[in-house]
């Protein structure tokens, strides 16, 4: 796993997303209420547009979620599955916080 720093952890607002441009495309990075971070592809397959980082973060049951700002499809931030329509899913991207930096992982 190769890790790429994208921003300071403090650049993330609680329960809000940012978008990072990395090799291989756009990644939406979220800071959850408990302080942990999640990352998924920024492309919303339901609308065909790169917007997931601008969605509202919340929960459905115990699952952390983001809702696309366009047609409001809700995605599970842990698995990438769309909870409203099984036909859609987004890639989950490995993410960690090291020395106050948010890092995204890519295969070797």
């Amino acid at each position, binding site marked *: 796993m190769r890790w790429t720093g994208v921003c300071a952890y403090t650049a993330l607002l609680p329960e809000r997303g940012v978008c*990072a441009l990395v090799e291989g495309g756009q990644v939406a990075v979220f800071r959850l209420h408990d302080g942990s971070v999640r990352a998924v592809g920024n492309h919303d397959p339901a609308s065909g547009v790169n917007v997931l980082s601008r969605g509202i*973060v919340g*929960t459905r049951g115990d699952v952390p979620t983001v809702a696309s700002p366009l047609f409001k499809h809700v995605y599970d931030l842990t698995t990438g599955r769309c909870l409203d329509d099984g036909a859609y899913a987004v890639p989950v991207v490995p993410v960690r916080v090291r020395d106050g930096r948010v890092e995204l992982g890519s295969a070797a």
Partner: protein
Amino acid sequence: MRLVVVGNGPVGQRLVDAVRERDSDRRWQITVLAEERYPAYDRVALTSYLGGRTAAELGVVPAGCYDDRDAVLHLGDPAAAIDRAARTVTTAAGRVVGYDALVLATGSAPFVPPLPGADLPGCFVYRTLDDLDAIRRCMAWARTGIVVGGGLLGLEAVGALHGMGLDTQVVEMAPRLMPVQVDEAGGHVLRRHIEALHVTVHTGTRTERIEPAGRGLRLVVAGGEPLEADLLVFSAGVRPRDALARDAGLARGPRGGVLVDAACRTADDAVYAVGECAAVDGMTYGLVAPGFAMAEVVADRLLGGPAQFPGADMSTKLKLLGVDVASFGDAHAATPGALELVYSDQVAGTYAKLVVTDDARVLLGGILVGDASAYASLRPLVGAELGGPPERLLLPAGLTGATPDLPAAAQVCSCHAVTRADLVTAIRTGGLRDVAAVKACTRAGTGCGSCVPLLKRVLTECGVTPSRALCEHFDHSRAELFDIVRVTGIRTFSQLVAAHGRGRGCDLCKPMVASILASLGGGPILAGEQAALQDTNDHFLANIQKDGTYSVVPRIPGGEITPERLIVIGEVARDFGLYTKITGGQRIDLFGARVEQLPAIWRRLTDAGMESGHAYGKALRTVKSCVGQTWCRYGVQDSTTLAIDLELRYRGLRAPHKLKGGVSGCARECAEARGKDFGIIATEAGWNLYLGGNGGFTPRHAELFAPDLDTGSLVRTLDRFLMYYVRTADRLQRTAAWIEAMDGGLDQLRRVIVDDVLGICADLDAAMAAHVASYRDEWADTLADPERVGRFVSFVNAPAEHDGGVAFVTERGQPRPARPGERVLIDLEVVRR
């Protein structure tokens, strides 16, 4: 075969509908001869015409009913004579129409007492749209009115005059109001309610004559001071219109009306009568529901059926001047040995009486005044064994905790003859989940609507619990959450969801809580934790579009803009390559801005003195105006200045849904104000205020709320209207739906924000004053905060880059998003380079 129908009121029309529905072979060719200029309209809702509904909106003729040759409607050409030997009808215009069957549906005429002066100018009746037009013309100058007749129809007219702002008196010969429906004690409670509205009530008063008095009229009464008013309305009952039948030699009932048998047929087999002109076995009915039943009987007979008129339930429930009145069954205890139980609460102004058999086991009838909510559950019990002490039905639910059980055979909807058993079957087999579904499936509740509360109850009894919860995180409605926030002083979502909800929220509850916090002075919408609650539009203070770019709308109050600002908007659009379009709300929308461009665009706009138009928010959008008196030769007030003042007063107000306003400088209504949540139309004397209009999916015209207001009263009324809406409406509920859902509708709204029956007006006024004082431009605030400006990037790690997924092509000299086929070509172009 030829069917001729004389009269096109609701009952005549129902007959045509019922025949067309049953006559699939088209055996009958139908000709309808109508006296009025308008196709059939809902006469029960006549008063709403004065409130702004149009003849078309009141119409009850199904689309396409008279589009083919098998059904013809002749308006404005009443039948003048019937020749039964030749089987023809001759109209006033001389048209001669032959028939094989003739149905008289001529209705009834208002009763005008034979008094000297009853035909003076300024004397009106209250029956047709033309009558109302005549009254409305007189209202242009009239300030006071008298209604002669304190019965059901009389009080309807009182409500209309009072609603139009006239100082109104009502004169009734009987010792109490509504003598047919209520008893003396009930009449007393009713009178107190009506007097509280500043309507003067004269009962036991006999009118002797009417004289001219200046521009108005003087009513001379027996043994009392004469009464004066600018106009007078006779609404003292109706008489069946049976002259046509009488002249054709057909028998009349003992109290008038065309005498018919239970098949609604006269002694002439080819001639029928239905509705208020018919005397079925000698009995006339002044309500619409029995008329509909007669129409169904005749339609069945015309197609060879055996139907008979079963008699009719004369129960009534209505709301007059905001007061509930209901009367059902044997309301006056005429049954031998009948007993009465009475519960009267003079504090609450309610009166309830039940009439039971001498052994108190069977309910015979009753009267409810002030609160008729029990009507829906009591009326179906008439004739049923009560199975318990009757007083438990009478006391308010809070005192006994009991609601009567409904027998399966009890008729819940008497308009469409739907029993409780029918409903239960429909709910269980159809999987119905709410009242709307029950209405659509069974038609119950779609007539007079009085049984709707009972439909909810039957749903609950079937195990269906209509939930008011917003989402899985809160069990509360928006109004309940608003009160929780207001009372507890909670000012963050985290506190609220921890104390009153569960989980961490979602895209439904978070923006809604953000809106509530903003309404309650929670500070700038992007400060602190609130920023995370906003959806992307409020977060970036712009409107997201289908390709993920945003549109920008500066506020242009009242649609008035200086050339300098117009030039700045044009320059910004040119320099940032934005698609430019004029909106319906008299402003300019600039499309295709990327997130990182928004601060630079707004720096230019704010430098030129412009501010956020809140096009992105559930908030006040625009107050549209015409140029009014200043330029227009027809204008009677300065509509532009008022529109600008109102837009600036309410700018930034967060609401359950978007809010729009309009101000027109004269009755020509060029600002289309009645299509707005609040519409104002100038009059010679001030401003008419209309509330509850919208365009969109279900267009609605705003209804007249108050006439001829001065500017101060107008603003105060609007302040309260908007703040009450902000506090109590559901999420995404426009004002029209909010008013409709309110128990009592526009009348109830008037009671709350004009009469202050809830005692909250001072609070609403203070809340609006606080909003006006605390308004700040969100874009100016944002630009002044470098940390917030820093959020406007497409990529956190590459602020200079922008989304390569966005591509434009040029059309008619402007950019627009590329369509999928066009994108491929653009991408190829990039690769080739």
